[in-house]
């Protein structure tokens, strides 16, 4: 009564190949699908679903430096006319900029339409006065481990922000609050969290992630030159 082999159908093989093909399609077109789903689900509960918008939280040291907004200080030194230590309210007294832009991690996840508010880095540089011979900035973090760099030209881009608000609220400690950097045209690792100091220097010093193999210039299109050939991606 057993069915002869010839009468059987390769259902298992078809399902196996079908699921594999679905995976391949998802890799090829998941970016577009996520743009649609992200709009549908938003960042709330839907953000927990695959394809929803969800930040993955990284910390180099395995802990978050907790700094109260009152005790927060940003030190700006180096090749500047007036080395200055800003409090949070000092920063907030500068011209405020806000915009909505994507946070894109180099490893592939992204969160579109994140609301950012802060002061343009160029405003801070204007305030302290950059001296001739300055080539780059080095950023330091309260975590004591992370560091980043931008050239003077990159620092003057109109979407490089020293931010104290993110997602419509003060930047939380896990997102790098009270104050973090946001470099819109580059991958997320350039947007240093828990910003503690900016040093104006005469050469580009590769930061933590650069020393771990990431490009010094982390433009969103993957190019690695000092200027962004494709700035419309943000």
């Amino acid at each position, binding site marked *: 009564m*057993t069915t002869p082999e010839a009468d059987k159908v*390769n259902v*298992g093989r078809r399902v196996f190949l079908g699921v594999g093909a679905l*995976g391949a399609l998802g890799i090829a077109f998941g970016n577009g699908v996520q743009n649609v789903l992200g709009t549908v689900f938003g960042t709330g509960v839907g953000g927990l679903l695959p394809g929803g918008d969800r930040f993955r*939280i990284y910390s180099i040291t395995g802990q978050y430096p907790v700094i109260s907004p009152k005790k927060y200080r940003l030190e700006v030194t180096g090749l500047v006319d007036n080395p200055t230590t800003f409090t949070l309210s000092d920063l907030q007294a500068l011209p405020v900029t806000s915009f909505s832009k994507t946070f894109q991690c180099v490893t592939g996840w992204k969160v579109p339409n994140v609301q950012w508010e802060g002061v343009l880095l160029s405003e801070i540089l204007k305030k302290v006065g950059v001296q001739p011979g300055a080539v780059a900035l080095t950023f330091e973090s309260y975590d004591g481990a992370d560091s980043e760099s931008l050239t003077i030209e990159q620092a003057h881009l109109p979407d490089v922000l020293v931010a104290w608000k993110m997602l419509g609220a003060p930047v939380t400690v896990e997102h790098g609050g009270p104050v973090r950097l946001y470099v819109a045209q580059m991958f997320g690792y350039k947007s240093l969290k828990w910003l503690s100091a900016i040093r104006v220097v005469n050469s580009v010093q590769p930061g933590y992630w650069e020393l771990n193999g990431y490009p010094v210039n982390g433009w969103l299109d993957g190019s690695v030159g000092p200027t962004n050939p494709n700035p419309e991606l943000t």
Partner: protein
Amino acid sequence: MTTAPSRTHEIVRILRFDRVQIVTHWVNAAMFAVLLVTAIPLYFGSLFGIVLHRHVVQLVHLWTGLAWPLPILISLAGPWGARMRSELRRFSRWTREEIIWLKMLGRVPLRADKFNPGQKLNAVFVASTMLVLLVSGAMLQWFRYFSVSMRVGATFVHDTFALAVFVVVVGHIAMALTHRELLRSMFTGWVSETWAKIHAPAWFEEDSR
């Protein structure tokens, strides 16, 4: 390879799984558990707040994931894998009756094989999802070789398929807990001849020939 009914105890029993299959199943299950436990803080980062040493969690997840297919491949490969290979044929080639049974969601009678079509579909789905997770996961680790758009796609696929296989495995465990004789056979290897006659007559007939 067939096993003659054994009459050592009063109850006549037949071998459903050999030792290779049992060990493979539980090693595979343990690796899945490690992948699941390490995935939770990686996936829900902002909910769980701080996960100490995310990097370590990530490494455990990566290497367990890369090694995940090995137990099954090894169990299939050697001279010890005859039973595993015969299950592979069962999962792959279906009778017309099995296709109809699945389409009707089990509402038609079926002279069932060792595994019913639902179980076969589960096995094939999990196997293919393992492959998809392996490929998309490797892309996330070695992202430099892929365009940013493909990295986003790989993240999307890895998250979606992981959620799907999680749901399927929860169903698998629920079925195991409500079918105790079968659960026991995943430890001992044996089922009663009565069970086989009622629930897997096609297999019983083939096995006792």
